[in-house]
């Protein structure tokens, strides 16, 4: 192939340049800046001496190591639970909608509704449902089920699981729509052929539909990964900057925020350490997405 003529290259550059410039100014530059912050000492928000990798070393030592590993663990649990349960539920609902039951359009819309709801609203909504005194779910668990008390958000054993469930409730519509679109993209004739070949519904799902959802799976797994490892919003709304109760909702993003901007109980900030957390977080997300995407793409069916 010959290279395109120069004028064409110039035209392409002309059209691409503004977007590239915006990306550079508003995304690349801040990212590099954040990386550089991790290399300095900070007094509140004023920069001090260049200290090299000191903050990274601090992060690898107590007491921050334990805090960071706990946060990382919460992110990992969130990822695994959402990967299996959220996407499993989404797959089931998508398959149900794929059968075009009565009211399919209504259900599709309803499922997607929480996705467009503000996360802050979702957080407060569920805090109301679960309010220890008058929350309807609390009352149900105590009066009908007969529990002595029911306050999962106040209990460090259950807070993370409960918050993940809220997040699933809020987000499940998105993978559902993606899976449904993937299923609808499979030509009808293929399903008919499988039926004539003697496959039952389960065999069609398992042998034909699932393997042909490859691209949908790739995108959903990657987005779930990024979402779980950068998780900030709901833990912050529910548990504040420290991820209460007892740091059980702490995540890497929350830790970064707390160190960089302080929290209500301790206004002391540690921008350098926060920068180190953000760099590690970025590296994990980048590497995970890259390897995940490469691996999953290779497994997709090339039509």
């Amino acid at each position: 192939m010959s290279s395109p003529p120069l004028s064409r290259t110039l035209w392409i550059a002309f059209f691409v340049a503004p977007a590239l410039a915006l990306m550079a100014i508003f995304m690349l530059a801040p990212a590099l800046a954040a990386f550089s912050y991790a290399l300095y000492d900070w007094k509140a928000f004023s920069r001090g001496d260049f200290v090299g990798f000191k903050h990274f070393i601090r992060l690898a030592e107590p007491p921050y190591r334990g805090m960071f590993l706990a946060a990382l663990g919460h992110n990992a649990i969130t990822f695994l639970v959402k990967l299996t349960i959220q996407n499993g539920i989404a797959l089931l609902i998508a398959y149900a909608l794929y059968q075009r039951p009565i009211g399919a359009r209504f259900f599709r819309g309803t499922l997607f509704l929480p996705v467009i709801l503000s996360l802050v609203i979702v957080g407060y909504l569920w805090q109301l449902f679960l309010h220890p005194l008058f929350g309807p779910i609390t009352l149900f668990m105590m009066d009908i089920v007969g529990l002595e008390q029911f306050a999962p958000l106040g209990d460090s054993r259950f807070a993370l699981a409960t918050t993940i469930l809220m997040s699933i409730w809020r987000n499940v519509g998105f993978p559902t729509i993606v899976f449904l679109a993937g299923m609808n993209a499979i030509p009808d004739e293929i399903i008919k052929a499988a039926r004539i070949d003697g496959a039952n519904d389960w065999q069609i799902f398992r042998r034909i539909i699932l393997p042909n959802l490859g691209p949908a799976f790739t995108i959903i797994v990657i987005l779930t990964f990024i979402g779980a490892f950068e998780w900030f919003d709901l833990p912050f709304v529910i548990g504040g900057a420290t991820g209460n109760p007892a740091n059980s909702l702490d995540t890497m993003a929350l830790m970064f925020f707390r160190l960089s901007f302080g929290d209500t109980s301790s206004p002391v900030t540690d921008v350098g350490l926060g920068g180190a957390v953000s760099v590690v977080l970025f590296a994990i997300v980048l590497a995970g997405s890259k390897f995940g995407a490469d691996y999953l793409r290779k497994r997709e069916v090339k039509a």
Partner: protein
Amino acid sequence: MTTLEIRNVSKTFGDVEVLRDISLAIEDGEFLVLVGPSGCGKTTLLNCLAGLENVTSGDILFNGRRVNDVAPKDRDIGMVFQNYALYPNMDVRGNIAFGLEMRKVPKAVQAEKIAEVARMLQIEPLLGRRPGQLSGGQRQRVAIGRALAREAGLFLFDEPLSNLDAKLRVEMRAEIKLLHQRTRTTSVYVTHDQVEAMTLGSRICIMKDARIQQFGTPRDLYQNPANLFVAGFIGSPAMNFIPVSPRRAGQELAFSLNAAETQTITLPAPPGAATADLVLGIRPEEITLAPAQGAGEAGLDCEILMVEPTGPDTLLSVMINGAKVQARVPPHVDFRPGERVRLALSPARMMLFDPGTGARISADR
């Protein structure tokens, strides 16, 4: 080994009537072609035979047994789809094996069957490839192989060649014909191409607007089309239709084919035929060159509008009674547009149609 009978089958989608009162029957080993313009309900009828759609009313019988409520997988059919419908996630071997596997055919037997159809269809080198790595013709072979491997009692084809280029289409058509001669499996084949219908079918069912227009052998349809639609649909180039205004002369109808009324033609009057305007049909290959004037035989003197040599013969276009008429004549005479030619239109070759209902009113030949 299957005989097929369709009894008064109708199908509606909501308010849309897609099939109306379809009835036909074929013997074991026949090759039935369903042909008609796009949207006339061919695929729907085939899907009803496959059990992929339920009929709204009427019955479908395989071997005399009503199968309306039998699931597709239990109808003992193999189907080939227009867009091949191969499973993209399986290689060719997997595609062919899938139906066998679902039917719990032992692995060793599967391998045998796959090898057999692969040999028959010459797709052995393709067995390890995915459908995405095959050309259209190869995909269709695999699709046929998949249907074949199951050794079903009835094959259903839905426009299997319409996505192939012209040359490949002719080749595959011949191959399907040979395959049928070899296996003698009862087949139903949907197409919108009348050439495919004529060349493949042991019997042809012509459909239009949800209804059967005519059901018969290719020769029947060609020689005795039931109506204007069938007459115009079957045959290429298409039958000529010339408007005529006959007078009744005793037991005969007399009409003229030119304004000067120099050639008057008389045909036996069909029973009950009014002397209203009629449509005369005659096939291009049944118009011959007449000997020069005065040689005794009647001829119609026409001006040549267009000359289309096709190789084995030449198509001449002329005007008769205000209708464009094509004549298929031997290729060795060098005709030119603007010249005059004498054509012989033999009354024995003519058909008469009622322009209102479209029905043929002249007797069978």
